[in-house]
């Protein structure tokens, strides 16, 4: 706003972390209520944010409301610190709050995430903030909010059980792979946001505080530390997570979630850690994978996960 503008224009200033203090107080009250009733969706007066709805406004509002000057913030999208939206949200808080940021999971006090939970186990005192597109786990079974609120009130989750059963009847297994519904502390069925079901077990009995913000849908919910989170299943069809056949091509990790990267148009592909911090940490410790061999452990990896891209001069975000 350095350019001369019409004289009647008000001066444009923003508060610490963008939101005004009244709004933060309103959001904090919603968060406290959410923590008191684990898994329950608390309506809150979500604000317009300077990024679009559906791009993490719920998570950003929750983070803005809990962020203090001495917090260290990590922002990931798809497990990576370097995806466009993670970069944008991290720089938003760098600009509006001036807080320290990090890519290292264990150094962060607040982790805002979209679609993943980091591989490294979270610690007590850490808070993970999930961006949620559709907070209502029953939404695709029942489009009406009035009806789904009633179903939650009565703990009537028959619809969901029938859906999962129909999956098994039709496919032989439950055909939900992400946003896999969970039951929190034996009461509310909750949408864990579109994390792969691979990450669901990490929510159970976690020492960290887990907060969920849905901006467009105006809901906040929470899982307090050390809360029981159970993925829905049947006795004869127990919940199972995805397993990958091959280890990470860069760090050799197994038992982690992998991204498939297509290498050419003849079907060549590689699998690498979705959690870039986890991968970089392992590479720094000397772990290697099959694709890191020709370049040596140190040279190839940063090209994939480093902050600099060598493309994009034409303006297209790849």
């Amino acid at each position, binding site marked *: 706003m350095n350019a001369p*503008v*019409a004289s009647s*224009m008000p001066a*444009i200033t923003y508060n610490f972390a*963008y939101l*005004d203090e009244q709004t933060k107080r309103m959001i904090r009250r919603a968060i406290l209520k959410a923590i008191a009733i684990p898994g329950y969706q608390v309506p*809150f*007066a*979500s604000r*317009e*944010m300077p990024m*679009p*709805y*559906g*791009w993490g*406004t719920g998570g950003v509002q929750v983070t803005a409301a809990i962020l203090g000057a001495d917090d260290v913030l990590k922002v990931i*999208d*798809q497990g*990576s610190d*370097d*995806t*466009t939206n*993670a*970069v*944008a949200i991290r720089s938003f808080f760098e600009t509006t709050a001036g807080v320290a940021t990090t890519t290292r999971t264990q150094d962060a006090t607040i982790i805002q995430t979209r*679609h993943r939970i980091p591989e490294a186990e979270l610690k007590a005192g850490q808070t993970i903030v999930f961006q949620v*597109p559709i907070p209502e786990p029953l939404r695709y079974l029942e489009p009406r909010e009035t009806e789904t609120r009633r179903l939650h009130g009565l703990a009537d989750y028959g619809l969901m059980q029938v859906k999962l059963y129909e999956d098994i009847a039709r*496919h032989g297994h439950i*055909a939900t*792979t*992400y946003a896999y519904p969970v039951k929190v502390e034996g009461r509310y069925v909750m949408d864990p946001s*579109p994390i*792969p*079901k*691979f990450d669901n077990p990490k929510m159970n009995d976690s020492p960290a505080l887990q907060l969920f913000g849905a901006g467009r849908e*105006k*809901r906040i919910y929470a899982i307090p530390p050390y809360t029981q989170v159970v993925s829905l299943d049947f006795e004869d069809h127990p919940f199972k997570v*995805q397993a990958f056949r091959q280890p990470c091509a860069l760090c050799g990790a197994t038992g982690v*979630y992998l*991204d*498939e*990267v*297509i*290498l050419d148009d003849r079907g060549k592909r*590689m699998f690498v850690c*979705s959690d*870039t911090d986890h991968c970089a940490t392992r590479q720094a410790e000397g772990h290697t994978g099959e694709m890191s061999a020709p370049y040596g452990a140190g040279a190839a990896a940063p*090209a*994939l996960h480093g*902050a*600099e*891209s*060598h*493309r*994009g001069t*034409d*303006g*297209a*975000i*790849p």
Partner: protein
Amino acid sequence: MYVAVKGGEAAIRNAHALLAKKRRGEESVPEIGLDQISGQLSLAVDRVMAEGSLYDRDLAALAIKQARGDLIEAIFLARAFRTTLPRFGASEPVDTGAMRIARRISATFKDLPGGQVLGPTFDYTHRLMDERLATNAADAPSPRGGEGWGEGPERREPGAVSTVGSLPSPPAPLPQGERGVVQMPRVTDLLGDEGLIEGSPADDGTPPRDLTREPLAFPADRPLRLQALARGDEGFLLALGYSTQRGYARTHPFVGEIRFGTVEVSLHAEELGFAVPLGEIELTECQSVNQFKGSASEPPQFTRGYGLVFGQSERKAMSMALVDRSLRFKELGEEKSAPAQDEEFVLSHCDNVQATGFVEHLKLPHYVDFQAELDLIRRMRAEAEAAPREDLKEAAE
């Protein structure tokens, strides 16, 4: 080459630099000024103020410039700024009956107290491209003679009497305010005197809920519905209103009145004990008059749909009135049969800032979820391929 999968701060910086360049356009052409946007693209500014829920012409013009003319993007900018503003109070209700009229028409009466005032309107213009406007030079058509609407100067000579409507159209746009002395009672008030139309809902003193400070909850009462519609997307409401005209929850509407002009906004100052004028805003109001056959408790009478929008936007105000009336089906004992009557459907989807955000978020990476789906579909395909062989085996046995 797989570097391309990740974002990268440099790529984003470059993209934004290119955006800034594209926004500026050809640099040999002078930069467009906010006064030009505000003055010459005033209906775009009106729309951004209305759907951005922020009455500030300069900020709306800035938003339009910054958004390269993308009005929904500009509305988004206005909203994201508005939401940070402190609230120091709520104004007194504005009195549209005391509006200083720039335009006022009724489709239900040929003439009426205060008359039909056409004002600045595209209605009755011939939609012919006027090539004389394709210039920014001094020989641009003069608005003094009514030129520049595709009409040609010979048809709009000063003092010419319009053949449309019962009043002579003014020879040149009147400075605002000169008509303010004429009494312009609202058409619905005229009908109300005879008891032919339902009354305006009485003010029971309950402060209306504030959509921007509370989450939308259903069922929504009429003040809340009208709030949502007032900031709702013009195109969405237009289509819904249109659908009611085409038989999807038909309400048999007439435009009782459309009025556009300026009203005074006042704030009750606690310290002073009376209302203090803050300034004036431009509003468009539409009151539709709709059929109602009567019910067990109510005699047959006309019912109302209501639209009120910042600035001049008759299309939006009319659409809003149609949809408002449709959403009232329950209180009027009508059958529910169409989307325009469904408040959850209408109110959940009318906000274009929410809608565009969620639609466009599909551009964000989804490869974690897609990976999960890839894995699933491969497994299911493998199972499907394995299955027929078992069938053959069974058949052979």
